[in-house]
């Protein structure tokens, strides 16, 4: 019992800061940014699971994030257009009738369901195809990267259906509440933080379970696992789907928080940035993944505000330094400090 409390103390402390202190102390604009980082942290958590524990380096997590985001955006656009109305971008793209694909997204339940289940379904299909054929390592990484590139091109090309390069923006209300209101934004922040907390605990539980051990075994010796009677493809597909679902949910939260979804948010570069964030935070620990997303998100904002002209140097340098000096990321560094103190 004591052990249980001790183990959860850091988590509880962070939760109090995030849920109580942050909304009180931060001005609305900054709180909104923090909410955005937390959305990324949810994606990072999934990457931490799939890559850190399962060894699947997914460079296409933006795809799932994007699907979730688009599902939510479609719902928002439809409520705003009202029954029979058309979303603004369709009007200037010359679309005259609501495409059939859009119809289900008028329902918030279906839209949210699609935001999570859609990415999971895609992950299951893709996972079944590639994992069963034992595509892995760098092959898998590059395939997912190509997937991200392809999806962006597809979305951009279907301007009437998706808003093209612009994506979708200009949202006004969510479940009847004015999105411009600071109180709505604070509420969204709290929801995001809460979702992240719950997912973190659930993922931690999963990682510490026997399934988690199996996952590590698959990562380190996929072929050997077969001879223990498990199907690694199934284990990987399930994990990949879970991480895709998380990314989808994060995307759905992101849209009302940030107010835009566009192909620029889900292509090769943002997908890579998320993986980088996980690496910086420390992919071997779930907390590291979350931490990395928040730190890198903050660093990007801070650097680009301070040094609008040369911030890429700083971001690149920060990242190269962490990778070379602390290959296990910030979490690894903290672990080392803690061990050194107890030793």
């Amino acid at each position: 019992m004591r052990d249980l409390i001790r183990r959860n103390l850091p988590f509880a402390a962070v939760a109090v800061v995030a849920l109580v202190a942050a909304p009180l102390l931060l001005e609305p604009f900054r709180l909104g940014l923090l909410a955005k980082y937390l959305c990324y942290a949810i994606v990072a958590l999934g990457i931490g699971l799939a890559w850190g524990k399962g060894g699947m380096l997914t460079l296409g997590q933006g795809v799932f994030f994007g699907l979730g985001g688009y599902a939510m955006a479609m719902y928002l656009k439809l409520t705003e257009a009202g029954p029979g109305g058309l979303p603004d971008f369709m009007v200037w793209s010359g679309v005259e009738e609501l495409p059939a694909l859009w119809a289900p997204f008028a329902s918030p339940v279906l839209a949210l369901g699609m935001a999570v289940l859609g990415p999971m379904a895609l992950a299951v299909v893709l996972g079944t195809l590639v994992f069963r054929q034992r595509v892995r390592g760098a092959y898998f990484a590059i395939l997912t990267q190509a997937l991200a590139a392809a999806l962006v091109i597809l979305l951009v090309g279907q301007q009437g259906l998706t808003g093209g390069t612009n994506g979708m923006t200009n949202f006004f209300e969510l479940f009847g509440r004015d999105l411009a209101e600071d109180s709505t934004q604070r509420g969204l922040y709290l929801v995001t933080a809460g979702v992240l907390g719950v997912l973190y605990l659930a993922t931690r539980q999963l990682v510490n379970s026997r399934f988690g051990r199996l996952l590590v075994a698959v990562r380190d010796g996929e072929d050997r696992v077969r001879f223990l009677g498990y199907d690694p493809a199934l284990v990987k597909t399930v994990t990949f789907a879970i991480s895709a679902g998380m990314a989808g949910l994060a995307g759905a939260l992101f849209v009302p928080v940030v107010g835009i979804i566009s192909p620029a948010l889900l292509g090769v570069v943002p997908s890579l940035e998320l993986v980088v964030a996980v690496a910086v935070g420390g992919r071997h620990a779930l907390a590291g993944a979350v931490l990395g997303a928040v730190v890198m998100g903050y660093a990007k904002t801070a650097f680009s505000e301070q040094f609008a002209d040369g911030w890429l140097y700083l971001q690149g340098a920060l990242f190269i330094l962490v990778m070379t000096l602390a290959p296990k990321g910030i979490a690894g560094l903290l672990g080392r400090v803690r061990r050194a103190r107890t030793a």
Partner: protein
Amino acid sequence: MTAFVNQLPIGLSIGAVLLLVALGLTFTFGQMGVINMAHGEFIMAGAYTAFLIGDLVLALPAAFLVAGAMGLVLERAAVRHFYGRPLDTLLLTWGVSLVLQQLARDLFGAPNVQVPAPSWLAGGVGILPYNRLFIMALAVAGVVAVWLYLNRTALGRRTQAVVQNRRLAATSGIDTGRVDMLTFFVGSGLAGVAGVALTLIGPVGPGLGTYYIVDAFLVVVAGGLGQLRGAVLAAAGLGLLNSYAEFWSDASLAKVIVFAVIIAFLQVRPQGMFVLRSRVLT
């Protein structure tokens, strides 16, 4: 009909471009397992070298040296701490690529620069301009040189030994550090050569590398890791596929089709076109 027939040489010439940009990767990725995302920026460095020198032929060896030297520095300063962790190198070198892009922007300015094409490359035969033929010739020459290097020289053999069993290589008397440096030098140098060639057909600016990097890796993946003949066939195949897919639909859809075909292909041949089977369990 002519248009249709024309697509054949066009496809091959697209393949030659793909092959040229991917050739260096068969070294750094195929041989050493390093997923070098800064490969694109080494291509860019080659292109800027051509810009500075202003003469295409002189630029070829110079770009090889410049990009090679950059690769050498990258290898010594960072990549060497990452052997055995190929997926981590991907992230590291991506950071490097960001910095190099920004550096180019500061050194040469954000706008594109122009490398004049030599007058003897004006004109062409049939649908293929001389500059495309030049690129195809360069790709062929590159493949031959790489093949000879890997299979006919002691250095090539040493490279393979280090990749396959680093520790054993060291205890067999191979200076693994030097082999790593050399391999990275050659792989990066080849990127520089590709950069010179690309000045003939595309923009020369800080973003140059980003336009080619995903395609280059796809060629290596479809061909089979470290497999030269695989890379050649994959490049030609993807070039033709691209050319006909774009001919029938459009450039956007062609890219999507290429990706779909690669996934389908990996269903049949999960490790790319040519696989080196090994009995070692992973």
